């Protein structure tokens, strides 16, 4: 065995151990959700020794999980679509159009990137409340539409497209919309997919804002809904874990499908936030 092979094996072992540590809570949630409530508190072991689906049945029949799903999917999708369209157009203007105040506007976008979102919650809550949007989809959506990182990433990619390509389109008879939708966007499908994924995931995972702006159970998103179960069931671990797994399932499945893109997306946003 050469030194290099040795190093590879050691490295693989390290990664395996890290992966095992990381996956353990997930595994624990799974075993817990498959037991009866009584056994969890009396003699719970590490291995899966019982396939009891009563927690799942209970959760699906008594909680509003399907509605929470719908709320999560609906608001996250709308947020993603609007954030991408507005972010793309804003970035295009900042990158390609020449108008007074352009640099200042870009500085404002970059500066807003420095503001921690929770710092705005009180102001946003008052605003939503004044607009009568508490307990509504739009109340959940509107404050989440401000995503400067999308503008910044798009602008960087738009800046990199050669000027002559733009001029070729102008000579071919295209205007700004042609430029954006037939040149700049098609050249950036990859980044668009990546940005869509990170925007969707962060909207899906957002807990605190929907938790603040929604009080009615039928308007809750999944992360908020989980806490609700906790309250009304007392401490029923199997049901909590079953609900948590059901909530996470779409994201996990989505991740498995778009694995490469998600990694890319995280790296791009990390590069900007870096």
């Amino acid at each position, binding site marked *: 065995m050469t030194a290099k092979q040795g190093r590879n094996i050691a490295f693989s072992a390290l990664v395996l151990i890290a992966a095992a540590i990381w996956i353990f809570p997930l595994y624990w949630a799974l075993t817990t959700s498959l037991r009866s409530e009584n056994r969890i508190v009396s003699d719970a072991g590490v291995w899966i020794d019982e396939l009891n689906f009563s927690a799942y049945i209970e959760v699906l029949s008594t909680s509003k999980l399907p509605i929470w799903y719908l709320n999560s999917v609906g608001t996250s999708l709308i947020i993603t679509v609007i954030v991408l369209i507005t972010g793309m157009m804003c970035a295009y203007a900042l990158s390609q159009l020449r108008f007074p105040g352009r640099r200042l506007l870009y500085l404002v976008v970059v500066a807003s990137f420095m503001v921690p979102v929770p710092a705005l919650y009180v102001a946003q809550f008052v605003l939503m409340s004044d607009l009568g949007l508490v307990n509504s989809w739009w109340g959940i959506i509107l404050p989440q539409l401000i995503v400067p990182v999308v503008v910044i990433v798009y602008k960087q990619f738009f800046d990199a497209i*050669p000027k*002559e*390509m733009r*001029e*070729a*389109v*102008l*000579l*071919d*008879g*295209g205007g700004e919309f*042609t430029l954006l939708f037939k*040149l700049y966007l*098609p*050249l950036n499908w990859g980044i668009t997919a990546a940005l869509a994924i990170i925007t969707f995931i962060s909207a899906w995972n957002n807990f605190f804002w929907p938790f603040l702006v929604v009080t009615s159970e039928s308007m809750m998103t999944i992360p908020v809904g989980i806490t609700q179960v906790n309250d009304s069931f007392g401490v029923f671990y199997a049901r909590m874990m079953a609900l948590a797994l059901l909530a996470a399932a779409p994201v996990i499945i989505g991740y498995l499908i778009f694995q490469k893109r998600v990694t890319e997306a995280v790296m791009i946003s990390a590069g900007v936030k870096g």
Partner: protein
Amino acid sequence: MEDTGVHLRGVTKDFGAVQVIRGVDIDIERGQFAVFVGPSGCGKSTLLRMIAGLEETSGGKIIISDRDVTDFDPADRGVAMVFQSYALYPHLSVFENMAFSLRLAKRPKAEVKDKVVEAAQILQLTDHLDKKPSQLSGGQRQRVAIGRAIVRDPDVFLFDEPLSNLDAELRVAMRLELARLHQKLGATMIYVTHDQVEAMTLADVIFVLQGGYVQQSGAPLDLYDDPSNRFVAGFIGSPSMNFFNATVEDRTDTGIRARLEGQPDVAFDVDLTAPPDPGATVVLGMRPEHLVVTEGEGMRVTVDVAEELGGVSYQHGTLDGGDPVIFQQTGARHNMHGTVQTVTPQTDRIFAFTPEGDRIR
């Protein structure tokens, strides 16, 4: 008769405080192949982009096909441009690249297909229509860029150094192809290059740009035979013309007799209709191809580098007084490196300039 040429009247261009184009008048007739030539940074591209409408005009007028297009959008001027970088749309096939303008103009599908296929035939791209630009060679990309211009059927084709990204061999081949294309299409073409060989071989009419002005315009051989100033004389012709300072010794019946400052034992007669006064300083210009080796008398040149090209060779050296000299040798095979040669210009092949660079005729 309708005049479909390109005309510039007093055109200027400022970039902030810097005036890059300082007042240019240009007349290009319909169907001519015009070349803007000049050293890098002299404003050739800027002028071409102003004609295309990609750069605003600071002053003056641009007239294309009898229309004052100075304030028109690029697409409305009847021009098409081929960029140095080709600027193909990387996400579209060759076919769609060429069809782009027609699709934007919402032309019927059949017409789009006919026009693209026809252009592809002219440019030998028929087998490549489904490929992406990244799958093509440099020369093929170049042709797609030209095809994109052809399908628009413009009044004027604009080329900005289209061959400079190709290797030397392909450059010569494409140069010929462009000349053929011009004959075939009969359209007006304006071509920008810093390479005077390209200019000489392609042009019907050359405009030499320098310092924001057109220094001289005319047919290639007119510029070569009769340059109107020292800049044009030095720029047109390869290798460049030799220049020597000289003093007017005397007037003759037909012009002047001028003595070289670098080598006072040599003097030449130059025919001039407006000879300067005796004692004045002049600059004599002689092309390398007009210097003949003469045994024993003439300008003494110490050869330090010999460029052998086979048919001809260029001998680089210095005159007694230190002025650099290049002269051309045809057929001679013996190595002149390190030797002292005497050369004499052919009669009537000496140009005279003022120290400021104006031609004395």
